[in-house]
């Protein structure tokens, strides 16, 4: 997509920061939500690949902040500010949170997609970060790539085509 810059990869339950000419990507979002928070003026963006809605779900002492919506967004905002982003200028684009399977809907852990989306939105509200665009829910897996120069989020799916939001 960009011949000069590099693609910064964000793994599952992972986060990272990007500046032009690089772009940032995470692959294979199912129930997980990819959250991009950016400061357009500073041309800086961060992405977190959220797996679970809330860090209170953790059963052990070990904490990977990037795994949860609450701690992941808090950490990403802190890192962006440390890099010079202004909190009042921060905006967000989100994608993911699909419900790909119907099995055991009574088991709440399998409504995880919608729960992740809700938790992400709540947390963004806490930081007064507006959601400028979203491609969430449905039943398709997604790969997303964000370019901090254009502030466009490219969403690729297998079954529903590709789009820029």
């Amino acid at each position, binding site marked *: 997509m960009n011949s000069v810059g590099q693609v910064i990869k964000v*793994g599952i339950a992972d986060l990272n920061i990007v500046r032009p000419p690089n772009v940032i990507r995470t692959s294979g979002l199912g129930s997980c939500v990819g959250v991009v928070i950016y400061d357009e003026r500073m041309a800086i963006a961060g992405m977190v690949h959220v797996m679970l809605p809330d860090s209170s779900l953790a059963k*052990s002492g*070990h904490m990977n902040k990037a795994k949860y919506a609450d701690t992941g967004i808090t950490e990403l905002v802190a890192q962006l500010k440390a890099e010079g982003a202004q909190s009042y200028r921060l905006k967000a684009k989100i994608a993911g949170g*699909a419900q790909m399977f119907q*099995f055991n809907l009574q088991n709440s852990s*399998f409504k995880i997609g919608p729960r992740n989306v809700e938790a992400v939105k709540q947390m963004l509200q806490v930081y007064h970060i507006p959601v400028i665009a979203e491609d969430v829910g449905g039943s398709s897996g997604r*790969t997303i790539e964000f370019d901090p120069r254009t502030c466009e989020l490219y969403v690729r799916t297998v079954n529903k085509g590709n789009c820029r939001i």
Partner: protein
Amino acid sequence: MNYIEKMNTTHLDILKEFGNIGAGHAATALSTLLNKQIDMKVPSARIVSFNEMMEMAGGAEEEVVSVSLRIEGEVTGNMFFVLSLQQAEHFISNMTGDKSFSFRKAEGKSLGLSAMQELGNILSGSYLSALGDFTRLQIYPSVPELAIDMFGAIISYGLVESSRYGDYAIVIETVLKEVEAGCSDEMKGHFFLLPDPLSFGPIFEALGVGINE
């Protein structure tokens, strides 16, 4: 202490045997169904990071055909039977006799998809009932669901329970291959069994080994 830290090689060997028995029965079922010789590779039972898991079977973005189900009962977890598109098309052609079957064509697609679904039902059913007989544990599979999507998006559903305990999962993987297909890497099916963290205790107990041994 985390359940993963308690795992030793004996535990992993037992899980390997678990995979061996299940996939052995599934291979026999597949062989009967297709009337072809099916080869099964030695299963592996591994502790993998989530990112390693996402990169199996061709990578997180790789489009695959999967029959997935949730296991409930005395053992809980998720199971995935994952095929490349080519392999799935090949199996479907074999079952329906439609030699030109392709996921890209609308013609004959619904029949092909239900044949694939049925294949998944039979294989996962024989895998899990063999495990149930072996361990005498109650294992109730959900209705398997067919999905054609990115591997990472599908398999991440199997990581949700483990993710509450850490950034690792234990996966029992078995590869089935048609003997005639030769050495082509495309032509194989993967079984991924991902028991939930709390299920390892009951599994080892049923087989007479404590988790703390």
